[in-house]
């Protein structure tokens, strides 16, 4: 039994598939790129079907149109609860895109893909985009106050405040990355190290908790924190 782990190799790494040349460096197309392209194609197909159905909309919605209207109303209520009327008008599209992308990337483990958010490159880029949005609002609504607020309450607090702003990037990206990577590692270990007869039915519970529940909560927390930070900068 002790040799079991040494015989089989667990493989949850990212594989590099196609090399190409970028200004003299060799960079690769990896499994993350492929999985993310599949998910984006799925979202685009869904959006095109929804657009076609809405263009020929019925007064009393049924079926697919009903589901799409439910999703849009839930999203608008969610953003309105945190950001108020003006914020909703500006940001409901961005928040809707981010939450849909992160949620579908997180649960793509159910389809057999390796979740793209289990790659630190993806989550870092998402967090950097969110922080650029936050700092843009900071400068737009506070003008010079965005810089002088780094010196409050005492002049010596400047490094601590700068680290506090930078830590938004680190914490947003690492939280999403760590949760999804932990789920991926545990499910891969389960599938590769145990005999066949415990692999029918029982992994559904593991997937339900680690992939679906955890993924949904992380998508919710990412967008909620982005909205709260933006609202703080607008009102600050």
């Amino acid at each position, binding site marked *: 039994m002790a040799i079991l782990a040494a015989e089989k190799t667990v493989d949850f*790494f990212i594989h590099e598939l196609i090399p190409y040349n970028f200004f003299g460096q060799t960079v690769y197309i990896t499994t993350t790129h492929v999985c993310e392209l599949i998910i984006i194609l799925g979202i685009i197909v869904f959006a095109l079907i929804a657009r076609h159905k809405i263009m020929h909309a019925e007064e009393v919605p049924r079926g697919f149109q009903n589901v799409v209207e439910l999703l849009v109303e839930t999203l608008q209520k969610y953003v309105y609860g945190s950001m108020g009327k003006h914020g909703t008008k500006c940001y409901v599209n961005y928040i809707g895109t981010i939450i849909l992308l992160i949620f579908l990337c997180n649960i793509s483990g159910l389809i057999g893909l390796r979740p793209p958010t289990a790659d630190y490159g993806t989550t870092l880029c998402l967090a950097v985009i969110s922080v650029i949005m936050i700092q843009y609002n900071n400068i737009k609504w506070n003008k010079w106050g965005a810089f002088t607020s780094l010196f409050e309450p005492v002049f010596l607090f400047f490094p601590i405040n700068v680290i506090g702003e930078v830590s938004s990037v680190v*914490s947003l990206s*690492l939280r999403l990355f760590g949760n999804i990577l932990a789920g991926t590692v545990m499910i891969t270990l389960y599938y590769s190290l145990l005999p066949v007869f415990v692999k029918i039915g029982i992994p559904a519970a593991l997937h339900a908790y680690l992939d679906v529940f955890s993924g949904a909560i992380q998508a919710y927390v990412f967008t909620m*924190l982005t909205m709260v930070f933006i609202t703080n900068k607008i009102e600050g």
Partner: protein
Amino acid sequence: MNQITNEGLILACSAIGAGIAMIAGLGPGIGQGIAAGQGAAAVGRNPGAKGDIMSTMLLGQAVAETTGLYSLVIALLLFYANPLLSRFLKL
């Protein structure tokens, strides 16, 4: 007895370090348990606000879990993408 190579020593100490790093899983466990208890007490006092209380509690728990995840990332890094070993091999 075989000689312990330098590489083996680095890998062994990384394994011990990864194990010690996961002791940091204690903090979020206690904190999130206390938060869940307060959430349950709040629902008991005000059963009508159950949806709002649950959303707030889940948000707070996910933020509190972050430091536990930092230690998990360090442990996985030491196992599978060991920076000390690659720095040693370049020397």
